[in-house]
């Protein structure tokens, strides 16, 4: 079958599902709603697999296939088609997105059973999947932006899913507004791109940029790169726009798994990887990406150390891992960033789903201080959570190890790498292992600290929820094996597979002068990252299993540092003070009372009414009802008209 139609069949089923559930869902039974919802996602997955198969089969040429269906916008020079762009990067993204999304749809059947708003949930979830697929298959920047904003909208709707809870609706607004700041950058960047190249079509723009000499248009491209990265930083929760992601945990857990761990938040990484050729011609912008990514990874990792809320800890962990992906892209090893995106999608969505399973068992409790000892009662959940934890900590041969190692190796010896980035990344790897095992131990090991009234109905979740967990656990183990590093006598197959996509960018980056400081061998680099993970795990085991009073003593001894960490460096407070409060005051005192109340309401709206009434008051005196006066007016008019004709002309 023709790939052109398969792609449409892949993208549209979720939209149909969303439409059906959105319109009729209220009157349908839960079984029907979930059938429609999961069916939409399932069809997408099937067609994603089919198109991947057909694309791979159709000759060995790894060229991107742009499909233009119809002209969507035509205005002056600007022309945007409804077009898809299918290459190996798209293939990997669509597979990752649809597989994870389908599993999470299945999981949601069980998770949302007693939550209310069942059909609404599946409507949004399907709509999200449609938008996400639009984002990753789009063949030009405007269409990608549609998907980009669409997933933002669905994210907002789903974070605020429990809209009766104020914290949830606030969190939704926060996510929407903060990402909008980034989107402003994205829009301006795209406009600048158009201004420079007179096209927004991926194929055209990338060909034009690839044809440039290194240094040509560098200023413009640097600006474009930075602006696009601003959008990416908003969407993918990087410094300084990461603040919305922890709050986004107000949404139902499957949403956190799908949108805020596996797919939507990786859209920024995808954007940078998709525009790799632009960044390759703007090394300064690319360096910013790497540095911001690395700092975010470390910064969020330190915050995660002291979090007691299971989901928030995972949220900071997500920010940190997204930082890794940007670090990978930023040092020029785009394939490693995408590789980590894929493995992370599996193990992080697994972590969230397992956390959801814990939450389900604990009647919604998320405070890890009130958990403990759950491994006996939640055997499947525990096993899968353990696998995901090992995977994210970077212990071979689990998935996270390979992707993280590739990024760290790239940070050391990549085109824009530097030992500093490598060491900070490795330190973060240690932090990751520590806080993840801390969470694991606090939740599943030790004495039970569960409150008595919840303790007696702690139960393992139904098979509807555990089967997706097991499938994801399988992927969390094996997903890394597609790219065994050369140091382990592998072939780095994943990188080679993506070479046609990132080759031009890598070639362009070769011309960038770079200094190499270190001379560590790849095997040594790998050894250090494993060592860091092991130290992290060891410390966590020592502090949270053996001598459980050490953390408290440390917290007391370094009370100031501890307080800063538990308050997340006071960033939220700082933003509140710097932006939110002044905005509120300005809105209240100036925009509301002066602009709206005085100017718009009073001067403009009431003014227009009163002005009309006043003029009418004067003019109605003409309507005397007195016929001779009408006659006089007519005569006067006729005389004036004749004067006009004879004098003015």
């Amino acid at each position, binding site marked *: 079958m023709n790939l052109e139609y398969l792609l449409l069949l892949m993208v549209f089923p979720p939209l149909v599902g969303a439409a059906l559930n959105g319109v009729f869902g209220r009157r349908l039974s839960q079984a029907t709603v979930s059938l429609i919802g999961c069916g939409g996602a399932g069809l997408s997955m099937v067609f994603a697999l089919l198109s991947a198969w057909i694309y791979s089969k159709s000759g060995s040429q790894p060229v991107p296939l742009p499909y233009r269906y119809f002209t969507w916008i035509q205005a002056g020079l600007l022309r945007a088609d409804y077009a898809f762009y299918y290459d190996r990067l798209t293939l990997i993204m669509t597979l990752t997105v649809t597989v994870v999304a389908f599993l999470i749809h299945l999981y949601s059947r069980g998770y949302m059973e007693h939550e209310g708003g069942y059909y609404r949930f599946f409507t949004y979830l399907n709509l999200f999947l449609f938008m996400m697929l639009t984002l990753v298959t789009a063949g030009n920047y405007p269409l990608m932006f549609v998907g980009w904003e669409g997933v933002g909208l669905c994210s907002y709707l789903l974070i605020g899913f429990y809209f009766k809870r104020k914290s949830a609706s606030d969190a939704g607004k926060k996510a929407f507004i903060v990402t909008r700041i980034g989107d402003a950058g994205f829009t301006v960047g795209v406009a600048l791109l158009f201004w420079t190249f007179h096209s927004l079509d991926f194929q055209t723009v990338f060909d034009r940029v690839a044809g440039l000499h290194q240094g040509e248009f560098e200023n413009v491209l640097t600006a474009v790169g930075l602006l696009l990265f601003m959008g990416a930083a908003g969407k993918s929760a990087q410094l300084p726009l990461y603040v919305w992601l922890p709050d986004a945990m107000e949404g139902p857990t499957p949403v956190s798994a799908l949108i805020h761990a596996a797919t939507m938040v990786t859209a920024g990484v995808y954007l940078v990887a998709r525009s790799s050729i632009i960044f390759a011609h703007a090394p300064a912008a690319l360096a910013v990406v790497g540095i911001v990514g690395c700092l975010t990874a470390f910064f969020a990792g330190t915050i995660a150390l002291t979090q007691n809320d299971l989901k928030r800890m995972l949220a900071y962990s997500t920010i940190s891992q997204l930082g890794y992906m940007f670090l990978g892209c930023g040092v020029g090893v785009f394939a490693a960033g995408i590789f980590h995106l894929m493995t992370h999608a599996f193990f992080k969505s697994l972590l969230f789903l397992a956390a959801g399973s814990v939450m389900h068992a604990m009647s919604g409790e998320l405070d890890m201080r009130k958990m403990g000892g759950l491994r006996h009662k939640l055997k499947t959940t525990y096993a899968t959570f353990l696998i995901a934890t090992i995977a994210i900590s970077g212990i071979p041969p689990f998935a996270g190890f390979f992707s993280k190692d590739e990024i760290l190796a790239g940070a050391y010896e990549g085109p824009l790498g530097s030992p500093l980035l490598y060491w900070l990344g490795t330190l973060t790897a240690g932090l990751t292992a520590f806080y993840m095992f801390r969470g694991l131990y606090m939740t599943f090991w030790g004495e039970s600290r569960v409150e008595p009234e919840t303790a007696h109905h702690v139960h393992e979740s139904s098979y509807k929820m555990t089967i997706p967990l097991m499938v994801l656990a399988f992927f969390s183990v094996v997903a890394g094996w597609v790219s065994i590093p050369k140091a382990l006598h592998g072939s780095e197959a994943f990188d080679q597979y993506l070479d046609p996509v990132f080759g031009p960018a890598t070639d362009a980056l070769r011309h960038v002068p770079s200094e190499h400081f270190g001379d560590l061998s790849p095997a040594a680099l790998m050894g250090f990252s494993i060592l860091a993970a092991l130290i992290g795990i060891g410390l966590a085991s020592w502090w949270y299993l053996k001598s459980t009073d050490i953390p408290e003593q440390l917290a007391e001894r370094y009370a100031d540092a501890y307080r800063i960490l538990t308050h997340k460096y006071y960033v939220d407070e700082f933003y509140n003070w710097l932006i939110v409060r002044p905005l509120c005051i300005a809105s209240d005192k100036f925009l509301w009372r002066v602009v709206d109340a005085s100017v718009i309401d009073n001067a403009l709206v009431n003014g227009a009414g009163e002005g009309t009434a006043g003029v009418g008051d004067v003019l109605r005196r003409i309507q005397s009802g007195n*016929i*001779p006066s009408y006659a006089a007016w007519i005569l006067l008019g006729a005389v004036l008209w004749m004067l006009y004709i004879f004098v003015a002309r």
Partner: protein
Amino acid sequence: MVPLSHYLALSVILFVLGAAGFIFRRNIITVFMCIELMLNAVNLAFMAFSRFLENLDGQIFVFFVIVVAAAEAAVGLAIIIALHRNRESLNIEDVDSMKM
């Protein structure tokens, strides 16, 4: 031969008389007659020009005006009778119920 200007002067005098009467007189029938006076002033001007220019167009216009005036007289007088039956008055100042 009487020059054109004499006819026109007479026409203007008649018209101004009619207009003044239309504005200042209070009896509706008088007002009505003033309208006829203005129409005939205009007819006079038409006729004078028609003769002066030796062109029949003006005379055709006069016929039209006479026909319209006849129709107007019929409708107008009917209105006046209806008014008198309702108001028992022919003073134009009593007819002002359209006033705001």
